[in-house]
């Protein structure tokens, strides 16, 4: 039965006559069949959030329920694709409608014409259970797209159809006549099932020294990146998408800039995946709802993104989901809530903001998939854009309670062009202890000790800087000057990392450990030399600092050779000073 529009206020529309429809069902609104979702039912009235611009709608226009919640299509063809917040493929929309987005266009998410080569992993007579791998499609050079039995489906195989097939063609037929194709559908607001969760004890390596060494997170973990504008959130999110050790990257551009996304679109196809050498775009799925695209679709975009991430996780892959920015999502939630005239909580956000954030981040995790083989993980990194750069606002605070790490960006560091502008005093991670064992085993036994020593040095410098601000650098002791100098080398040579330098952009833990070792060795040796009577000026004159500051540019393969040589040089240079 059709409903009728009785009220229109921005993206919120009220309709009557939808008594048969349930909450969160997708509806088609008006003569143009705009897509929307039922978000409240009160008596005979259903409130809808409409995913497209509502200008031009009139009262009395029809509303039809599709009987289905907001779902995404999952199957071959996801990788390298660019979707909007409700999974419409943007290249296909451009082919249909031209350079500008038009309303009311529908297009299936996955290409129905394209034929994929299905290589079965099962045979007639096999008993299938949910989540089991039935076959593989070589979707890209770097990644085998595993075709899974959808959750809730099981049975015995009557027929297997190998070879070329479109996503909707049956590739396996069960005895009861049910047909399985390569395409699955899943409602975005419900998390995909798995067998069980695993302890977060493997790191999610980002290639960023300050993160991997000081504030590492686990595979399947969560982190937030809050920062005022211009502090480098977007560049950091893009750097993670480029260099993070993950099989698949889902990048959700939620309410951000169009030109930045066009940069991603033009750069990623030409960049190499550091793990496979294939184009970076081949392991990337983009979900993009820029700030000028409809606000309700922005609200949906993070769910679309995480559902796609979970799907690849279920194949046994490690997926990284980055959201830029969750504040824009929260604002979309607030905007719709305010149109519903709900009682506002803090700063006008709805009272369920924290609950929704919690539900979202809890979909991250390292799990044994339903099929029972291997493990997959979804790691979530969400950028936050706090108004005025003030972290006490509700979105940052609510996110902090449900995530495992804070990578705080500092406006002050950004003004000094220290990037990534991660504030080492304010950031934290709750995963460090659990990951220690891995780092000690894989990177080097001194990992834990060096990390702590480096943190102490930075802390000591911070205290000294406060004094220097008051009395000037000349007024403090030489021993303290050495602390400040060593910390400077640590900040400039280690914490700072150029996202645009071909070698420095990504740094493996082994190289990072060597850098720490050298920088701290210099610090100890210099302090010792000083106490043995060498003058501060003599130490500063050695110009060892120039070498230490350029360590980031050393290719990882040469680090050990160059590192050992420099270590010897530090010892000998300072020994000479002590001798003279």
């Amino acid at each position, binding site marked *: 039965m059709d409903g009728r529009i009785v009220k229109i206020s*921005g993206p919120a529309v009220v309709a009557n006559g939808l008594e048969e429809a349930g909450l969160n069902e997708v509806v088609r609104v008006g003569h143009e069949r705009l897509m929307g979702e039922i978000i409240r039912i009160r008596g005979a009235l259903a409130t809808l959030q409409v995913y497209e611009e509502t200008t031009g709608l009139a009262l009395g226009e029809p509303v039809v329920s599709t009987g289905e919640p907001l779902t995404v299509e999952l199957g071959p063809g996801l990788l390298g694709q660019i979707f909007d917040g409700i999974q419409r493929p*943007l290249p296909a929309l451009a082919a249909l409608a031209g350079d500008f987005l038009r309303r009311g266009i529908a297009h299936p998410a996955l290409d129905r014409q394209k034929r994929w080569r299905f290589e079965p992993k099962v045979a007639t007579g096999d008993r299938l259970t949910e989540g089991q791998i039935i076959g593989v499609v070589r979707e890209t050079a770097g990644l085998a797209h595993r075709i899974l039995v959808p959750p809730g489906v099981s049975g015995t195989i009557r027929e297997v159809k190998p070879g070329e097939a479109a996503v909707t063609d049956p590739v396996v037929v069960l005895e009861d006549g049910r047909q399985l194709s390569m395409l699955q559908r899943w409602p975005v607001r419900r998390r995909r099932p798995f067998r069980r969760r695993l302890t977060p004890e493997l790191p999610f390596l980002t290639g960023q020294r300050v993160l991997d060494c000081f504030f590492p997170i686990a595979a399947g973990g969560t982190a937030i990146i809050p920062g005022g504008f211009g502090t480098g959130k977007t560049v950091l999110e893009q750097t993670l998408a480029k260099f993070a050790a993950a099989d698949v990257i889902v990048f959700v551009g939620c309410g951000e800039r169009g030109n930045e996304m066009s940069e991603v679109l033009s750069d990623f196809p030409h960049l190499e995946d550091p793990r496979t050498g294939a184009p970076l775009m081949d392991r990337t799925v983009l979900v993009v709802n820029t700030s*000028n695209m409809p606000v309700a679709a922005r609200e949906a975009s993070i769910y679309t993104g995480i559902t796609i991430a979970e799907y690849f996780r279920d194949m046994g892959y490690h997926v990284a989901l980055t959201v830029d920015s969750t504040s824009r999502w929260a604002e979309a939630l607030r905007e719709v809530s305010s149109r519903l005239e709900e009682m506002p909580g803090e700063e006008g956000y709805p009272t369920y903001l924290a609950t929704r954030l919690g539900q979202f981040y809890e979909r991250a995790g390292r799990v044994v998939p339903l099929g029972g083989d291997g493990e997959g993980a979804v790691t979530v990194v969400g950028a936050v854009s706090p108004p005025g750069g*003030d972290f006490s606002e509700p979105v940052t605070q609510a996110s902090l309670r449900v995530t495992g790490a804070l990578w705080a960006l500092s406006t002050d560091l950004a003004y000094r062009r220290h990037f990534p502008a991660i504030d080492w005093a304010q950031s934290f991670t709750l995963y460090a202890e659990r990951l220690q064992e891995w780092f000690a085993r894989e990177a080097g036994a001194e990992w834990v000790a060096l990390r702590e020593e480096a943190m102490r040095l930075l802390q000591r410098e911070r205290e000294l800087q406060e004094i220097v601000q008051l009395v*000037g*650098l000349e007024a403090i002791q030489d021993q303290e000057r050495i602390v400040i100098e060593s910390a400077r080398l640590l900040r400039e040579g280690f914490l700072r990392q150029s996202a645009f330098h071909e070698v420095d952009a990504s740094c493996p833990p082994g190289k990072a450990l060597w850098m720490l070792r050298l920088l701290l060795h210099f610090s100890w040796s210099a302090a010792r030399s000083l106490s043995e009577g060498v003058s501060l000026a003599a130490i500063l004159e050695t110009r060892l600092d120039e070498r230490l500051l350029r360590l980031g540019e050393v290719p990882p393969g040469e680090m050990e050779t160059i590192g050992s040589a420099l270590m010897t040089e530090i010892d000998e240079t300072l020994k000479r000073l002590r001798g003279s």
Partner: protein
Amino acid sequence: MDLVTRISRSTTAIAGPLLFVEGARRARLGEIVRIRLEGEQERRGQVIELSETHAVIQVLEETQGICPARTEVIFAGEVATLPVSRQMLGRTFNGIGQPLDGLPPVIPETTLPITGSAINIVRREKPSEFIQTGVSAIDGLNTLVRGQKLPIFSGAGLPAHSLAAQIVRQAQVRGGEPFCVVFAAIGIPFREADYYLKVFEGSGTQDRTVVFLNLADDPTIERLMTPRCALTAAEFLAFTHGMHVLVILTDMTHYCEALREVALAREEIPGRRGYPGYMYTDLASLYERAGKIHGRQGSITQLPILTMPDDDITHPIPDLTGYITEGQVVLSRELDRKGIFPPVDVLPSLSRLMNLGIGEGRTREDHRALADQLYAFYARGRDVRRMEAIVGEGGLGAEERVFLTFADRFEAEFLRQGSGGRPIEETLAIGWRLLRAFPVEALTRIKRSLIERYRTEGGGDGAGPRHTDGAPEHPG
């Protein structure tokens, strides 16, 4: 679309700029209505909310004198549109696109809805062409690129208008392609608007300029339409006629206040400082109308100007703007007091697209590294200056004094340039001249080969320290 005109005589309430009309059941959201009152000039309004009981109409002009009982509201079934034509160049319009210059209306090539549509992201072209504004603080350190939106954050009494005018006069895109300016005055005083018009006249840009004027005493709500009209004209000139359009929107603070006025009149739940929660989305619908499209000639570059209330950069207007635009040029009261023009505070200023527009083949290979080094030394110099205020000049070490001198010279030689323009080569040369105060080893952000090539004439190592601080990298 229903083209039958409907008239409603049942206006029930007026609240500020809003009219509540009963029985407007066939109205459309966003529709433009005419409000007729016996013996008075017809006013225009826009439907912003519809329900079975009433329609909410935002009146684009003053609501003063409207008497509900005598008011007729005419629904014509049209959304807000603007007739556009190449002939708009050289013309002046009011805030909703009606001619103000006494000439007849333009003969439209087409009529476009002023809300525009979002560019499909896959059709967007990555901006990459350097625009030489002739201003060192911008060209050298916060480079403007075609298709970018780069706002000027000003304060009351700071010379944002002079800077904007200077950019209009001097802005050059290489290659001499068709270039024009769309200027939208949003709630600014006549004095300021007049200043711009004189500049357009004086620089011969007049014939290549489309002007939309909503002055301080014009209807507030019209301000919500003015930037949209301007951007609609800009899109037409850019994407249909292949022109490179520079759009100046001034002052966005007035725009935001108009937005707040409507929101509060609708009794919406206010966000920070009373501004509506959807202000980000609303501003984005304007700012995002900058850019380039694959396969089309033209481009839209936006230079919005806003006044930070009480110079507060965390105020919602600059804050939300900064989150949408690709950087910002921040003006400083301190520099202005020192008589430095343009008073651009380069530390909080930023151009996010800078890297796309500079370097070899665009400006020069040493541009990025030079900018980084200047930033680093100037940031350090400002730290020392703060310290000097506490410990006095005597408390500073020799090393610190070098940075202090550098900061002073940077402001006096690099930033200060008066109203003249500098080619990019001159800007870079000044930068290198300033760096000669430091020995080669101190220039840690610049590759040796570049130092050798560009740090030439005058040579002579300075007495400065080798140790630097806060050396920069690429901006976010």
